[in-house]
């Protein structure tokens, strides 16, 4: 049509690297890695108020009364999270038995958004103790509820992973998983955008899913935020 069209068409004609097809081919042949199998290997301790402890490996759940319901919920949410179907946890966490500084650190770590990372030093600054990066590291290392309180999203300032209670390999896989999981999912028929893991989101059919980068973007093309999971509210 006009010159703008022509120029744009030219601009968008990016030649693909010649090796791309081969690499895609190889990736399709490779086994898809999955974390889901890990879900059964976690066990929980819960009080009336929420999950008090999460451990990996051998052991048994310890909960009574309402705690048992928390354990069930936590296990289901954890399995969804590991399968890449959930980006947030709604199960309550009980940090009653944790010292004040540590609970402060854990509360702040819980605010790091899904898919993001932060350095120990930055976290120390945020809680108002800029020189306490090591103390922050220790507090996170003794995190009684890893994954639920995402201490794996805290890495060292130089970009290396640092330690993780369940091993560096699992930290890598969790961060990779979060990298590959979309956060905001819209439904093309209802025009509602949800956080991944919302019960409304889980009912969206595979062929009706679109991903959005922000609630504002979604609103710009006519999608409204879900009233159940309230995407956008928790971003702060």
């Amino acid at each position, binding site marked *: 049509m006009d*010159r*703008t*069209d022509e*120029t*744009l*068409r030219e*601009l*968008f*004609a*990016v*030649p*693909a*690297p*010649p*090796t*791309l*097809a*081969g*690499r*895609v*081919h190889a*990736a*399709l042949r490779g086994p*898809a890695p999955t974390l889901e199998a890990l879900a059964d290997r976690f066990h929980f301790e819960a009080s009336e108020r929420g999950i008090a402890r999460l451990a990996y490996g051998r052991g048994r759940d310890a909960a009574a009364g309402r705690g048992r319901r928390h354990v069930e919920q936590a296990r289901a949410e954890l399995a969804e999270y590991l399968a890449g179907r959930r980006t947030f946890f709604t199960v309550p966490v009980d940090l009653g038995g944790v010292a004040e500084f540590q609970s402060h650190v854990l509360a702040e770590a819980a605010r790091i*958004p899904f*898919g*993001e*990372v*932060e*350095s120990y*030093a*930055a976290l120390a*600054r*945020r809680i108002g103790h*800029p020189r306490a990066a090591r103390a922050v590291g220790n507090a996170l290392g003794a995190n009684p509820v890893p994954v639920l309180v995402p201490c794996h999203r805290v*890495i060292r*300032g130089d*970009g*290396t992973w640092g330690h993780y209670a369940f091993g560096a390999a699992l930290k890598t896989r969790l961060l990779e998983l979060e990298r*590959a999981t*979309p*956060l905001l999912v*819209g*439904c*093309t028929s209802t*025009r509602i955008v949800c956080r991944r893991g919302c019960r409304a989101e889980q009912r969206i*059919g*595979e*062929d*009706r*899913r*679109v*991903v*959005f*980068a*922000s609630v504002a*973007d979604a609103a*710009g*093309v*006519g999608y409204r935020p879900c009233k159940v999971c309230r995407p956008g509210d928790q971003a702060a």
Partner: protein
Amino acid sequence: MYLVRRSPSRQRPAGSGSGDQRLPARTGGPLGLPAGGGAEAQPGGAAVFHPLAAPGAYTSSSMNEHDFERVAREYAGRLYAVAYRMLGNRADAEDAVQRALLKCFAARASYSARWAVSTWLYRALTNVCIDELRRRRVRTVADLGPGAGSGAVTTPNAQGRRRRELALADGEAVARQPRIERIDLTRALDTVPREARLLLALHYVDGLGYGELAKIRGISINTVKSQLKRGKAIMKKALEAGGHDGSD
């Protein structure tokens, strides 16, 4: 999940030779076949199959491995072009294409005849790209946010460093493009809002029409039109400005 199926009369067997012969061949697509794709060229020579021309071409109730491979080969180049313009560098673009194709591959059993293959693939790709951009935006905000005065810049994280390295590596690619105008345009493209940029990329890489763009993004055709217009206006402005101080 969804059980909607077209009546059997609309479904055609996939992967058979007879299915291919019915396709009207389109020569000289925007990118041509990606490397290696020529091995499976149709009788018409280097013809490029166009999905919109024959929506029934690859359709079946689901897709087998062989079909999928063929489709992946055929679209890899165009998917890459879209991803490159969305994400701005080679490594991320390749990663996005790969991830999108893997997702489709895993879900190939649920591929439904109601979809054009291109719509299906492009939606997967745009979902991956958009999520990648979401992550970047949050990252930069977090970088600037808490320690604006103190050491935010001195505590780079792995992602940030990787991106900077990639940006350096990309410098070569940009330098190979002859005209200054192109660099200006690339910069202008960065200022186009995400949703509009995505539609621009899809529109200009594969010549997709409003209807298919609307299906890919799950928005109305009117929204597609207004977003495209907005994006185009920004690019046009940059083009005119660039023309004055660039070539003259």
